[in-house]
């Protein structure tokens, strides 16, 4: 097969597959359900709805994409998430009506906007990776990469037994040096009051068991969450150094010492 024929074969066979695997069902007078061959996170086929009024078409996911994310623990409830969602939608020319992704077009521009809507659905599906549990492990990796990138010597995942006999796990420990004491680091993805209290308790219970001077730093994810001044004040009150993730560079020298 010549190169030109080969290229044509790839395009044609893909188009044939697309056509064979796309299903259209009429739901009401002017509403069509279009099942595409693309799969979502659960391996379910992505469906869109086409509402036809004369030559004007409205394409929508019927709210499925955002509802499904919410049902997987990924609510659009932080400024950062809303901003990511808005950027995805803007990029594909899609608007948000209540919870539904919507785009208006005509018969001529239908293929382009159908393609855009599907791409937006797929991109928003990927936002699942930003859900809190997933972000926790990503944030921990981010903190570790930050330590590595700045030549901060550390031991990962260090457990200590407190005065009470309880066991506490700290994410990183930086050993004692001539210039600085032993330092523990706790990465906090979601700095709530409850988590703050439990860290303060854990630290007070363990630091008395350490010989010599020892310090605790909490690295707080303030990109996905607002960190209230009460939380910062509470840490400082108990001589724990809070580091906002967005201000981490200020602490490089201190941690590398």
């Amino acid at each position: 097969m010549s190169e030109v024929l080969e290229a044509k074969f790839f395009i044609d066979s893909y188009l044939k597959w697309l056509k064979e695997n796309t299903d259209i069902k009429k739901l009401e007078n002017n509403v069509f359900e279009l099942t595409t061959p693309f799969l979502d996170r659960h391996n379910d086929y992505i469906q869109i709805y086409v509402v036809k009024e004369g030559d004007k078409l409205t394409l929508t996911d019927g709210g499925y994409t955002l509802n499904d994310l919410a049902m997987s623990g990924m609510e659009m409830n932080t400024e950062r998430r809303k901003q990511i969602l808005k950027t995805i939608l803007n990029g594909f020319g899609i608007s948000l009506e209540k919870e539904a992704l919507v785009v208006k077009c005509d018969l001529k521009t239908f293929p382009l906007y159908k393609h855009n809507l599907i791409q937006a659905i797929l991109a928003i599906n990927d936002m699942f990776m930003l859900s809190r549990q997933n972000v926790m492990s990503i944030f921990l990796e981010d903190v570790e990469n930050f330590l590595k990138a700045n030549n901060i010597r550390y031991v990962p995942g260090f457990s200590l037994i407190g005065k009470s006999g309880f066991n506490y796990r700290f994410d990183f420990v930086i050993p004692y040096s001539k210039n600085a004491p032993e330092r523990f680091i706790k990465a906090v993805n979601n700095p709530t009051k409850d988590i703050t209290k439990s860290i303060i308790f854990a630290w007070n219970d363990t630091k008395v068991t350490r010989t010599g001077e020892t310090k605790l730093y909490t690295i707080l994810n303030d990109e996905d969450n607002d960190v209230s001044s009460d939380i910062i004040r509470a840490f400082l009150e108990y001589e724990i150094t809070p580091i906002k993730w967005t201000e981490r560079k200020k602490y490089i020298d201190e941690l590398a010492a």
Partner: protein
Amino acid sequence: MLEKQIVFPMVDSSLTLNVVCLDNISERLLIDINRKGTFKLTRCTYNERYQTVITLVRLDIDTKPHRNPDGTVIGPNHIHIYKEGYGDKWAYPLEDFKCFKNPKDLIQTFVEFCRFCNIIEIPTVQAVMT
């Protein structure tokens, strides 16, 4: 389940219920009943998730068709069951599960779903069906 009585969600709404593990109360399980969706009134998804993000069992009634990683295609009534390495990407036809007697009866199916998920105290369901 923490709730003793629930009102079954109406069309275009959803409900999330808290489940307590008897052998470890710190484990968090949630059960969702989701009837959201503008165009399909018969559509309903029951979902059991662990630590808020991991779907263990997901029962789809009249939702979207599904394709398994091996290429097999399954119709709009199917049940996803967590599989190591795949998450909830594998699903099975609902007709293979005799414990679900009538998928059109959404309330009965909810009770059957709870039993399938080994939930001991299933709340009584008040129906305001539309």
